[in-house]
């Protein structure tokens, strides 16, 4: 058996999976608090990539290059996407807060289709070349076969982001309010938590993570279009369900498992069936462990 090849695939899978995880976190956090699958989440990711594309284009023309551009493009994309996430919740979900559960779900699908078509109209339906912003680091040359410089940046950024998120959820005031709201919404209101604000914050945080993922993946694959949000969204949603929807560590685990399964399947069997492996894995997990890898089966109180 060719271990070198296996290792190569594993590294690729982890890089891919960490991006899935970043997007999946947005799904799972929103679901945890308001039990809504925010189908427009993938579009927020796509918008992040587009904003980064525009910023990067302008900056490259003005003579900047490399990581400075990446950093600035990411910052602008994060701010922009956060505003989108916040507005999306206000317009598409908040008015339906007390409606039957199906209504906000349909509203989410509508918002997703709207945003995708809006970008298509306002920008272009074609693929756009995203500039390569991560330079080839010299020290990466010996292990480039396994991990490119862009991959390294992805791994570092996703790890740092997830660490920051963990600290935020565990120790900050808003993080505690988010956990409290997730565990018991009525009681959260009774201790004086402004639940609307917590929900807004959750959408903003999820959108920030999605925008970061958008910038990272765009600079790695080198091209974007208005439809990338759909595929990435479905994959990340799969990752969130795989790990147990509503469960934050579960989203990270689900993302990694999904990424590795995809690359292994593509590498050993056929890359044409990459997506099939992802969804077959989902079907398998849902049959064997319906609540997901880390999810707990919910007991319905009568």
């Amino acid at each position, binding site marked *: 058996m060719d271990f070198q090849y296996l290792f190569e695939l594993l590294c690729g899978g982890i890089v891919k999976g960490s991006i899935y995880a970043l997007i999946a976190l947005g799904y799972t956090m929103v679901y945890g608090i308001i039990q809504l699958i925010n189908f427009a989440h993938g579009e927020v990711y796509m918008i992040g990539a587009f904003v980064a594309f525009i910023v990067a284009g302008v900056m490259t023309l003005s003579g900047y290059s490399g990581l400075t551009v990446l950093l600035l493009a990411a910052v602008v994309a994060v701010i922009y996407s956060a505003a989108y996430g916040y507005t999306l919740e206000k317009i598409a979900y908040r008015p339906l807060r007390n409606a039957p559960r199906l209504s906000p779900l349909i509203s989410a699908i509508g918002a997703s289709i709207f945003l995708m078509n809006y970008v298509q109209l306002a920008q272009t339906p074609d693929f756009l070349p995203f500039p390569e912003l991560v330079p080839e680091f010299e020290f990466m040359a010996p292990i480039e076969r396994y991990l490119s410089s862009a991959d390294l940046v992805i791994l570092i950024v996703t790890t740092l982001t997830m660490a920051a998120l963990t600290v935020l959820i565990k120790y900050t*005031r808003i993080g*505690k309010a988010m956990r*409290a709201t997730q*565990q*018991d919404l*009525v009681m959260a*209101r*009774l201790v*004086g938590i*402004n639940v609307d604000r917590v929900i807004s914050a959750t959408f903003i945080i999820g959108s920030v993570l999605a925008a970061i993922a958008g910038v990272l993946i765009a600079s790695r694959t080198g091209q974007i279009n208005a439809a990338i949000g759909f595929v990435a969204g479905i994959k990340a949603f799969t990752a969130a369900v795989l790990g147990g929807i509503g469960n934050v560590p579960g989203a990270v685990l689900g993302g990694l498992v999904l990424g590795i399964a995809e690359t292994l399947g593509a590498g050993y069997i056929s890359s044409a069936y990459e997506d099939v492996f992802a969804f077959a894995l989902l079907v398998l997990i849902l049959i064997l462990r319906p609540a997901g890898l880390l999810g707990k089966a919910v007991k319905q109180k009568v």
Partner: protein
Amino acid sequence: MLEVRHIETFYGNIRALKNVSLSINEGEIVTLIGANGAGKSTTLMSICGVTPPRHGEILFRGEPIQALSAEKIVTLGICQVPEGRHIFPQMSVLENLEMGAYLRHDKAAIKSDIDEVFGRFPILEKRRQQAGGTLSGGEQQMLAISRALLARPALLLLDEPSLGLAPLIIKQIFEIIKKINDESNTTVFLVEQNANQALKIADRGYVMENGAITLEDRAENLLANDQVKKAYLGI
């Protein structure tokens, strides 16, 4: 201190409270007794702004509060321990207590208040890092009451604190309520099905049936009232 005037609360088209009026004076323990589904919990949730009344008004220290948001009402000093305790199950005992002080910013005072809670309930200190959901019913009730006290409420609303607890623990819980009222001069509004115990520690009481107040009197009079005896005390 609290004046509830002719409130009516609806769930959809169903009128759960019909023209409910009651008043609570500073320093009192007032109890609201009644059967399952009479509207007792709805009354508390209406006061707290979780299910605001459609008609009528609620005055707290003379100011109308029926249109305020739930979190604003907590800021004014009204805290509820809801039925079923509602401990945050995956948060530790300590974190649950800290959530009670969510709106406070005086860190040092919060810490000394938490120490006071641990002094009063040593069992909670022993379990401080344990997840709230793993506590026994009695421990959860102590935690729920302590969590509410950490907001330093002027008016404490308690919804069936004795629900599902062993008789010995129930006795203890009622002693704690009496003590809170005596020591920190916290006004208490106690909703109970356990009419006997509730009336014993209360100053005044209201009886609720089908969403309306049917009786009000001093607690000792209610204890002696034939109607109450028959319907709620099982004598």
